[in-house]
Every structure is written in C-alpha cells, then in structure tokens.
C-alpha cells in the first residue's frame, strides 16, 4: 500500500493535475468556459453572494420569519427563487459545488489541514471583513463574481466601474493590513 501511494505521488500526471497549482491561464480559460455553460443552462450569469442572501432568507423563514415585505426580495424573480426553495436553486447547487470541489482539490493534493487561529485580532478582522464584503456585495448588486466578472463579460459598464473601485479598495485594505498585521 505504501509503495502504491509513493508511486502515485511521483506520477507526473498526478503532480500536474492534482498536486501543483494550475497555471493562471488554465484557470482563466476554465472560468470563462464554465461562465458560458452557467449562462446557457440557468439563464443567468454566474454569481456567488446573492445566493448567500437567499440562504439567509431561508434560514429566517425556517425560524418563522418572513421576508415577503422586504424591499430586497420584492421582485417576482426573487420571490419565485425563494418559493422554489433551497434544493431547486441552481445558485445554491453551484455554491455547494464550489465548497465540495475546493475540499476535493485540497484532499487530492494532500494539503488538507485544520489551521490554528493565530490571534483574536485575526478573528476580528475576518468577521469585520466578512460583514463588510457581504453588505457591500448586496448593496452593490454583486460581488467580484456577479458584478465584476459577469458584469464585464456582459459588456456592462458597471463591471468596469466596480474594477476601478475594487482596486482603490484593495490599496486602502493593503495599507490597513500592513498597519495592523505586520
């Protein structure tokens, strides 16, 4: 058994496909191909964070709440998605697929590890960052996938505006990072 796993680990195809990171260009081409497949099969371009808002709504409904009167979920499309439910939502399947796929990739590269939390500062930054990203993505109608990648791919000017401010935000974020985490 040990010799077999040692053999697999040395196999050049295993190393190329599972162990080493793929080149950026491979990733770019695959993302584009799957973006087209997503648009063709679901009628909507790829988005990630809108799905999380729906998950929130379903969780809220699960404990007896109702989002029927919420402005964000007021459109017919949003209501229809919520009514179809968790298991009938292409976006939900895709997000679960991303998590499962990422897990598979780390396991296949034998790179899986439970990581230590280094400091409370890290926890605070993660929670704050997550809240800001989630709030920003919803108020701006998209994250870097829905608004940036899908936006630019659909020749929407808003995607480019997003790109400019994403860059500015990243500059400010990097400065803060160096200030508080170095």
């Amino acid at each position, binding site marked *: 058994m040990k010799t077999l796993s040692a053999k697999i680990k040395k196999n050049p195809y295993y190393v190329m496909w599972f162990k080493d*990171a793929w080149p950026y260009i491979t990733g770019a081409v695959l993302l584009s191909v799957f973006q087209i497949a997503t648009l063709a099969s679901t009628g909507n371009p790829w988005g990630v964070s809108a799905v999380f808002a729906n998950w929130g709504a379903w969780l809220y409904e699960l404990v007896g709440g109702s989002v029927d009167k919420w402005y964000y979920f007021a459109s017919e499309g949003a209501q229809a998605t919520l009514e179809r439910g968790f298991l009938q939502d292409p976006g939900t399947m895709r997000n679960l697929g991303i998590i499962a796929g990422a897990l598979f990739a*780390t396991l296949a*590269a*034998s*790179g*899986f*590890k439970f*990581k*230590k*939390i*280094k400091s409370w500062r*890290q926890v605070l930054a993660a929670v704050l960052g997550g809240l800001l990203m989630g709030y920003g993505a919803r108020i701006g109608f998209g994250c870097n996938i829905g608004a940036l990648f899908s936006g630019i791919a659909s020749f929407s000017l808003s995607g480019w505006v997003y790109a400019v401010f994403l860059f500015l935000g990243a500059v400010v974020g*990097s400065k803060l*990072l*160096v200030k508080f*985490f*170095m």
Partner: protein
Amino acid sequence: MKEVELDCMGEACPVPLIKAEKEMAKLDIGDVLIVQIDHSCAMKNVPEWARKEGHNVEIEEVDDGEWEVIIEKVK
C-alpha cells in the same frame, strides 16, 4: 551564513509574502530564510517573488498542508 526561520503558520495572503520581503531585506548575501507556511496561496506567491528577485528557492513539504520555503539570498 545565518539561517533564519519565519513562522507564518496560520497567516493568510498576503501576510506571509510581506513578512518574507521584510525579513529578507534584513539578511546578508549567503544567508538563508526559511518561511514556514500552511496557506496554499503563499506556496505560489512566496516562491514566485523570491525567484523573480533572483534568489535560490527550494520548497519542502513538511506535512499535509504545511510547507517550508527555503530561500537563499544571492544578491
């Protein structure tokens, strides 16, 4: 010929890279910097940066999801 270890376990990008850059600036030619990481993105950008700077780089897989990037300062 010094050998310096830099503990970047549990640190996410781009912290390991910035720490490695700062630490490298303090070293003399011939010294070795060992960056300990458990973040797979850092596995790409730390060696990439060091090779671009012209240093000798070796990567050692210490454990599942743990690596040491060994950088020898050559200039």
